[in-house]
């Protein structure tokens, strides 16, 4: 085949930035990957301390914004398991977030009739004890929602989950004797760590508000630890029979079933794992703000989480974290800003219209890049490394050749 024919079909082998990055990353040895990964993570963790001038938000505290990002990132990873990996459209994911937050609230808030912190549980330990309970209860709620509804497919499942999200919020609003209704549960426990003269209630307390070493920073760090743990778990699942089953179900559920995949079981697992991660995010949120009210768990938030997943790239767990960053950070970036690059703007107004802008962004994305900003390049084999390495060598040789031949033209 001559170069003319290549021109005729308009496909030249060129590498995008993402491909180059992936080729480079895959070419590194395991220790080298750690060598790059750990400092990058540390740098990411220190962002709210360093407070780089352009990046730092003006209207709200940067530490608080990053803490919120951490929680949304957790939710995005959890929702990505359900939507991105298994292909089950869940529009009521906020329900799991709410169940996680309310579990912590019910166990430790002084407004709750089920409050345990006056009795055997000290207030300082309340959150730590409530956290695993919140995760477990949310996982069970995922099971309860999933077992009847996962027999449905596509749009029907989406509608049922949408209803679930609303049911959870309405319960929180209407079970007044339990949840204190619209007034919410206040004085929720938080981990009391690092008390000192300047911080009498510990570093995680909302009272610790002096930047940069404020509560937001410490909750951000806690969220980062949770994210790393969750990523390891989800990564292990992805490169196993479970992850392959999820992708097979997403691609063609009937064919998967006929190839011996117990589809219902694995869909239920996806729901359960997604729910548990959502519950973890909710528990972190409840501890951070020490206050939960039903309006936080509006269905619009479900859409926002879904937006993070779709923008980031369905199925790409690192991509959806960046999606979550965009969703949380951009409105906060504009909040309180009066000029950008010397142009006077009304940042607060722009931030108010965030749903409009995200909606437009989604529409543009669906037209120009439906696979998301960072499309998934899933790896589904535990011991596939030698395969990818072999493919990489060929790819490098080939694209090297291609660039030379392009240069010669």
């Amino acid at each position, binding site marked *: 085949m001559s170069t003319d024919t290549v021109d005729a079909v308009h*496909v030249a*082998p060129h590498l995008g930035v993402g491909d180059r990055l992936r080729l480079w990353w895959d070419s590194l040895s395991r220790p080298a990957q750690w060598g790059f990964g750990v400092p990058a993570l540390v740098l990411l963790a220190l962002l709210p301390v360093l407070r780089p001038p352009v990046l730092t938000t003006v209207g709200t505290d940067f530490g608080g914004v990053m803490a919120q990002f951490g929680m949304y990132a957790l939710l995005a990873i959890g929702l990505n398991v359900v939507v991105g990996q298994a292909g089950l459209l869940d529009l009521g994911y906020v329900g799991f977030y709410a169940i996680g937050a309310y579990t912590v609230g019910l166990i430790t808030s002084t407004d709750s009739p089920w409050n345990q912190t006056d009795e055997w549980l000290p207030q300082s330990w309340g959150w730590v004890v409530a956290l695993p309970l919140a995760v477990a209860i949310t996982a069970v709620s995922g099971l309860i929602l999933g077992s009847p509804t996962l027999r449905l497919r596509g749009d029907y499942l989406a509608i049922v989950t949408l209803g679930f999200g609303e049911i959870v919020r309405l319960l929180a609003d209407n079970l007044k004797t339990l949840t204190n209704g619209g007034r919410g549960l206040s004085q929720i426990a938080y981990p009391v760590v690092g008390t000192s003269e300047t911080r009498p209630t510990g570093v995680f307390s909302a009272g610790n508000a002096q930047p940069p070493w404020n509560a937001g920073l410490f909750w951000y760090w806690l969220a980062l630890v949770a994210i790393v743990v969750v990523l390891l778990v989800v990564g292990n699942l992805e490169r196993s029979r479970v992850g392959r089953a999820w992708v097979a179900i997403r*691609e063609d559920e009937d064919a998967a*079933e006929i190839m011996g995949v117990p589809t219902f079981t694995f869909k239920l697992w996806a729901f359960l794992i997604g729910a548990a991660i959502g519950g973890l995010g909710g528990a972190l949120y409840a501890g951070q703000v020490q206050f939960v009210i039903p309006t936080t768990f509006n269905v619009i938030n479900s859409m926002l989480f879904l937006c993070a997943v779709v923008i980031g790239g369905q199925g790409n767990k690192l991509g959806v974290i960046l999606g979550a960053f965009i969703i949380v950070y951009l409105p906060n970036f504009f909040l309180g800003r009066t000029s950008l690059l010397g142009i006077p703007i009304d940042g607060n107004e722009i931030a108010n219209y965030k749903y409009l802008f995200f909606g437009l962004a989604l529409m543009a994305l669906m037209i120009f890049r439906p696979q998301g900003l960072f499309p998934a390049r899933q790896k589904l*084999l*535990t*011991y596939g490394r030698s395969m990818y390495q072999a493919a990489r*060598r060929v790819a490098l040789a080939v694209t090297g050749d291609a660039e030379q031949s392009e240069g010669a033209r």
Partner: protein
Amino acid sequence: MSTIPPDPAAGAEHGDQHLGTEEQVVTADTVAEEFLPDGGVLEEVAVDVADIAPELADEEAVAHIVATEREIETEVGAPLLQLEEVTVRFGGLVALDSVSFEIRRGEILGLIGPNGAGKTTCFNAMTGVYRPASGRVVFDGHPLGNIKRNEITRLGIARTFQNIRLFSDMTALENVVVGTDARHRTSVPGAIFRTPRHRAEERDALERGMALLEFVGIGRRATQKARNLPYGDQRRLEIARALATEPKLLCLDEPAAGFNPAEKQQLMDLIRKIRDDGYTVLLIEHDMRLVMGVTDRVVVLEFGKKIAQGLPSQVSADPAVIAAYLGVPDDASA
């Protein structure tokens, strides 16, 4: 996320270039030809099998890994699967009308008939997609009554699809490994904690998956996405994926659709190779030359009824079969 079915005509032409037995030499041109706008470069290039798995260079070694080690209760030559008076109805339409036949272990059985004769329905009744209105299917001593589809696969019936249904966003190797997973037992806890069983299964899946790809002749495409494969290779991948479930019975639903004569010949060789490796094969096919060339016995359906069965030579001489395929001349029926 649906597969765009490749145009059979174009596929046949395209596949011809790729089904050569010699290793394809990777050049910028061959890659450019296969490049699709979406998808990373890693999923586009052919790999050198000798580079990844040198042990697969020997054809006998490949066949040895691919050969099933399963315990099969049925003796060689005895009926492995029996259809007993199976009737399938869709509303008022009787798609299968008390059809009975058997598939004997170790044979290649051809199931033929004109369009709409009920071949695929028969197939679906066996693999649990449709439930028979009456009659029963007995497989290796087990009646397939209310068994779930995925459990039927684990019992040992695997199939390919008339219209290719691969997991198009997975690589060829990953597709096959999904098949091997049918025999695996790792679930979520095992995968999270990477238990020894999980690791053993993963290693086994990789080895067997690679061997299967070599067996059907597409090992070098292991890391390519299924949807980027040429048409002929997609058909081969479907066979490899079905074999990966270690079936006692492999059912092929029109595997030669859209193939040119040279490819059909290669497919016949592959089907024989599969049988020689210890599998039992049920072949649904239109192409009489292929059926006559490769099968041991043939069952003929027409309008949901069995009209003939026997050796290929007997069946092709049967007046009822000739009438079904060519029609009856006016003066004969008058």
